[in-house]
């Protein structure tokens, strides 16, 4: 049986443009995404790589879609996802992460994240399952309060391997 996608959705009290920046700009990602940042600014059709604050490789892949949100059309950021922060996960082929950023009215932005293509990547499927929950909550908290969630302990989600 094939592994189902992980689907997450969160409403954030910020504009679609602010959420777009939080996902695609290193100044934002390093504050909520386990200190990771893009080595080069991401661009459509280009490969990308992210690293932790102390320079260890985290994720690499291709940016397949990069369409910022506009009046009446949702933002789309689609990246293939090859984990570098753990030896066993690194052996698995890339999966795919799709972000959709949409104005939900009342000053809220709906962020939907679909992580799929796990058929050859069961360890990644398991590893990111809870990890995204923390990332999305931390991103929401940062955008709404100016501060991310306090850093996780070494045994939680992605941080486990990043910090070990």
């Amino acid at each position, binding site marked *: 049986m094939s592994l189902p996608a992980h689907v997450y959705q969160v*409403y954030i009290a910020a504009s679609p443009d602010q959420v777009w920046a939080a996902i695609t700009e290193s100044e934002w990602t390093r504050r909520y995404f386990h200190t990771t940042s893009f080595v080069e600014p991401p661009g459509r059709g280009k490969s990308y790589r992210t690293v932790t604050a102390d320079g260890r490789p985290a994720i690499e892949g291709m940016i397949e879609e990069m369409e910022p949100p506009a009046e009446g059309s949702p933002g789309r950021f689609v990246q293939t996802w090859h984990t570098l922060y753990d030896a066993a996960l690194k052996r698995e082929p890339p999966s795919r992460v799709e972000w959709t950023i949409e104005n939900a009215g009342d000053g809220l932005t709906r962020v939907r994240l679909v992580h799929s293509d796990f058929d050859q990547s069961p360890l990644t499927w398991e590893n990111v399952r*809870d990890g995204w*929950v923390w990332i*999305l*909550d931390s991103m929401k908290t940062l955008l709404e309060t100016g501060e991310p969630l306090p850093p996780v302990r070494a045994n939680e989600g992605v941080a486990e391997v990043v910090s070990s």
Partner: protein
Amino acid sequence: MEQGSEVFRALADPTRRALLDSLFSRDGQTLNELCEKFPEMTRFGVMKHLSVLADANLVVTARQGRTKRHYLNPVPIGQVANRWISKYAARFTAALVALDDQVITDQAKEKLRRAQPA
């Protein structure tokens, strides 16, 4: 929308929790598949519960071709946990780290004191 009270209201019902359990063990089920798992409920009943869960942002649907699939969205539950559990855990951890630092400092002082010639 994941207003806290909507999450708690949605989770208060045992049937809705059972629906979430079913999605947790196998995510991405169709309405038909879920109805088969709950033969004691009418199709309308399952739909109604799913719509309460969707309003609380605990279930998210996605279309795959002509099939509508239901996914458990754990983010609102994670938010509840991160707001309360982690907050206390972080404080507890910080206290332990401070204690550990203090012990190490004391030990180092003691060592230094002993190393000092009388």
